[in-house]
């Protein structure tokens, strides 16, 4: 199998840059790293098709060796579509992350730190719940599918202020 040397160099460069960017803490760079890696993988697939031959449109007079291998190109097409969808989704998620935390960085796991402290008790967190449960007043933002109230309170300070009990 003959291999295009230029494409190999380009592929190596894309992989190297992609891995470097992936190791950054900034989410936008991580995304760029993923894009570069995806393109590197596409070029790898293109390489496996061998030399650049004729378009694979069947003609009796042309020997089989003269055609290009169409299968890797079909695979590249699929992989481009997939990486497009994933890039779009990741962009949306990074934007949302920036909206919520105002920082474009990988965030630490709060629960991990809590486990390190070996207690789920939080003075601030616990002091205000009785105020609400005593009256069950109005709609509150207790999220029962979330991991706990601690994190929510962090995003929306002021939102959890004790409410006036209403009858």
């Amino acid at each position, binding site marked *: *199998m003959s291999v295009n040397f230029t494409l190999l160099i380009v592929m190596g460069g894309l992989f190297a840059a992609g891995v470097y960017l*992936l190791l950054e803490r900034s*989410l936008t760079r*991580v995304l760029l790293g*993923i894009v570069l*890696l*995806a393109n590197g*993988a596409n070029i*790898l*697939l293109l*390489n*496996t098709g061998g030399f650049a031959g004729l378009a694979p449109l069947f003609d009796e007079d042309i020997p089989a060796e003269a055609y290009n291998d169409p*299968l*890797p190109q079909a*695979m590249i097409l*699929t*992989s481009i579509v*997939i990486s497009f*969808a*994933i890039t779009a*989704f*990741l962009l949306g*998620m*990074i934007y*949302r*992350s920036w909206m*919520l*935390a105002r920082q474009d960085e*990988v*965030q630490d*796991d*709060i*629960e991990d730190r809590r*486990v390190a402290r070996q*207690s*789920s*008790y939080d003075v601030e967190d*616990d002091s205000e*719940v*009785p105020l609400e*449960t*005593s*009256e*069950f*007043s*109005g*709609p*509150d*933002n*207790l*999220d*029962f*599918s*979330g*991991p*706990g109230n601690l994190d*929510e309170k*962090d*995003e929306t300070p002021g939102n959890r202020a004790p409410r006036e009990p209403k*009858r």
Partner: protein
Amino acid sequence: MTSVTSLAPLAVVLPFLGAAAAFVLIRHPRIQRVVSITVLTLTLALEATLLALAWDSGPQAVNLGGWLPPWGIVMVVDKFSALMLVVSTSVSLAVLIYATGQGVADGDEDGPVSIFHPTFMILVAGVSNAFLSGDLFNLYVGFEILLTASYVLMTLGGTGPRIRAGVTYAVVSVVSSMLFLIAIGMIYGATGTVNMADLAIKLAELDPGTRNMLHLMLLVAFGIKAAVFPLSFWLPDSYPTAPAPVTAVFAGLLTKVGVYAMVRTETLLFPGEQLDAMLMVAAALTMIVGILGALAQTDIKRLLSFTLVSHIGYMVFGLAISTAVGLAATMFYVAHHITIQTSLFLVSGLIERRGGTASIDRLGGLARLSPLLGVLYFIPAMNLGGIPPFSGFLGKLGLLQAGVELGTPLAYVLVGTGVLVSLLTLLAMARVWNRAFWRKPEDAEFPDPVLLATRSSATEVGTATAVADDTGKGRFPGNGEATLLPSGMVGATIGLVGIGLALTIFAGPLFDLSHTAAEAMLERAPYIEAVLGEGAVDN
């Protein structure tokens, strides 16, 4: 090829059509629910038929679009894939009913729940595609379908913690998919085919060094998806933040698709013992590290995520032994673990609803408040811990037998680790039981105020206990009449626990099935000949 088996692609197509219909009906949640549950039931019926047909016949191949293998895409139904299809779709159906029950109970008519149904169906389609695929690239596509759906489900609602967990999860999954794609590219470069039956023949002709490298690349890619130590760090970090039904289906299915792919790689593509020792060490470490993590947790969902990692080790254990007994035990264990782990996550969702928190520091007295919940937790928990006569015990017994039969020092180490981890799992499960269910709520370290407040007004036995207190206001936003344990959620959980018990009762026939499946998979010829035709294997 029987005519019914050629309907196998419908197991992928039906959920896709269901997803499309559910998406069109996004403004009509009632009809949407009916459509998606009907479609999944139909899919399950089809897959049950496939399993019944595969029960006493060899592998059957379906050529998509009439393209002959090794050029076209091929789907293969054998005992293992049919069993996986049936188990995964029944679990998905139970989770869908549970999620629908939750959505109805919370009156969440136009929230993220409306996008939940189409995405969930796409997830099911991806899982089915991965199980049926007889083609490495199609397997990659199946993985991508289910992963993309899982990113959406993981970040449902877009709250802070979910986005944080979703970023980790998505980036790790994308990297593993990238490794898989690169491995496919290299395999195509080395052999000129991606058809798995064709690869089974052509990979054997490669230089051993090249073959080992390709083998390792595939194992690393699947190892990340299956959460095998040291590639398991992402799982306990990301799973617990998702909504309870989503975590349940992820825990049940996604890692098992990775295990399934590893089994196929080890048996069909790279037979032999080159990496078995490495896999054994990985299995032992996965079991130990996972369960030690679980013992340190106070949050039930995180604890269950760690036990999930730990029990992936058991599946790799049987795979690494790579005798017919070991493989059969792995297959049985995968089927058992999908049902049990999903039911435990569903129960933890119910515990969180009933007790107001999922932290065992703050729970107590649940056995008195809701005996039904206690039973629903106790049965799968004992099952997971491997107490006889449950299926967890039978699966572990099979694995230990296989280990002892092999008899190498490393295998004995694995057997010892398996027993120890089983005990530690029991300890973790009993800790949850003692704290959340057995003791009085007042004895909790930091009793949940909500639990204490509602205790007096809501001690009725049964399913539909209103959370409303004296003032008549509930604690669910926008719906004062929300029920704590809606019948849909409890019904689905009961059903799944029932399936877990059925696995115990029908363990004999299931073990026979997985044993014949394992022998056929180790022999390899039936699979290859089903795809490429008679006489494809010379030796």
